[in-house]
């Protein structure tokens, strides 16, 4: 599945995988695609994420919630090595993806980001025609040109955008509404056929109707993709996620099934936060 490993050794034997235990949960079984193990992220001397261990389940939506500065976006960006762009950022621990620690220095991060795509808070389409927003990344990745039209159509259909814009693929992407632009960004990520989609507050810049469309889209996409989402909007996390991780000050306070966490959290701090009583 993962073709990003150049020289890295497989850090986990199969027996180790089976024996893994989760620090913050008593849930016995997760069908994880990604395993975060004792993950710490630093910006210089500041530790933004502290020794976090949790799974990200295959074909599920995992939400990261917590107040500003709790480390949730840092954690998400670590999963496809976006923090590598920040010179003072460094890591401890591991993120195991298909038996490979993707924090290994030998990982091909471009190939990694093809498999683990990301969509950001502000819609950021290229100032190009809609169609080229999809094909640009494909060409960059050296993918075949013969089936470009098919990929464009499929990606836009998966992003629930095709019916709205199929007759104006030559128009500038900037002519689309904010919600359409964000779904185009999702389509752009899907065109590369990733396994995982990371969504960093994907609806915070959108109006409620556009947000609802993106939420429905996320729930549709999980049939085919594994999704991790950071959101300031607790209600959104509750609505669309299967599992939720609550972070505070870089610590993973609680991780578990979203239904359980929002009806019967194990930690008082989680209850205080989700009920709006956090001080």
């Amino acid at each position, binding site marked *: 599945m993962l073709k990003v490993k150049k020289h890295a050794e497989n850090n986990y034997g199969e027996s180790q995988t089976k024996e893994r235990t989760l620090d913050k949960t008593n849930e016995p079984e997760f069908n994880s695609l990604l395993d975060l193990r004792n993950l710490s992220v630093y910006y210089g001397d500041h530790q933004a994420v502290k020794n976090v261990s949790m799974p990200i389940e295959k074909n599920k939506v995992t939400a990261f919630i917590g107040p500003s500065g709790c480390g949730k976006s840092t954690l998400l960006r670590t999963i496809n090595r976006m923090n590598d762009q920040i010179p003072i950022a460094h890591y401890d621990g591991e993120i195991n993806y298909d038996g490979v620690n993707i924090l290994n220095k030998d990982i091909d991060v471009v190939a990694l980001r093809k498999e683990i795509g990301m969509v950001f808070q502000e819609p950021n389409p290229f100032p190009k025609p809609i169609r080229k927003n999809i094909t640009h990344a494909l060409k960059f990745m050296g993918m075949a040109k013969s089936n470009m039209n098919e990929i464009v159509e499929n990606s836009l259909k998966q992003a*629930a955008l095709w*019916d709205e814009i199929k007759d104006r693929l030559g128009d500038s992407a900037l002519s689309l509404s904010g919600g359409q632009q964000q779904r185009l960004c999702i389509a752009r990520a899907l065109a590369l056929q990733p396994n995982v989609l990371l969504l960093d507050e994907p609806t915070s810049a959108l109006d409620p*109707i556009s947000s*609802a*469309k993106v*939420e*429905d889209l996320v*729930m549709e996409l999980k049939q085919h993709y594994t999704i991790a989402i950071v959101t300031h909007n607790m*209600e959104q996390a*509750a*609505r669309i996620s299967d599992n939720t991780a609550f972070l505070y000050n870089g610590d993973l306070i609680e991780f578990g099934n*979203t*239904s359980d966490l*929002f*009806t019967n959290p194990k930690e008082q701090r989680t209850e205080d936060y989700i009920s709006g009583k956090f001080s």
Partner: protein
Amino acid sequence: MQTRRFFNEELQQLKLEVEELAEDTKKVLTTSVEALYNSDLKTAQRIIEEDHIYNEKEQHINDSALVMIAKQQPVASDLRRLIAAIKISSDLERMADHGKNIAKATLFLGDDHPISIHSTIKEMTEIAVSMVDIAVKGYHNEDISFARVLAEKDDKVDELYGRVTKDLLELTANNPDQIQYIMQTAYTSRYIERFADHLTNIGESILYLVKGVSYDLNE
């Protein structure tokens, strides 16, 4: 593109579960009354043993509604739909309990008791069953035009219950040695009367669901 499709699907699923539980209660009442008339102890025993199924179904409806309230933050009619599902399922579970109680009375009477079961109990059962059909239809279509019919039928069941108890009271005067058996049939008519009362509660829940205000159908 319709939004919140998944939540709407969950609401539909919950509605189906409520309707299924309503159909179950109808079957429990019908079967338990048949077992009473036929002194079918085996069926009565099975009804008692299967009661946990309806308790579990009610619990599942409540759990699902609770999770939807926590996860989906419903408002307005969606919120009322969930509250109504919780209230209606509680009534339905109690209705199944009344069917179980009739089965217990059947076991108490045994297969060699000296009294004949009052024929009006059958009539009460038929009306109660027709009330379930009306309530399910009203719930399914979110139609409140049926509500008054439910109240009228409940009044009819109450009237029949009065007639049965009066007859049985007279019977005890002439047959004091059979009082324990006569009382069991009196209890049975009482269980059916309560069964019908729960259906008027369900009618009130549907009125609340549709109109957003509380009504008392017994007024």
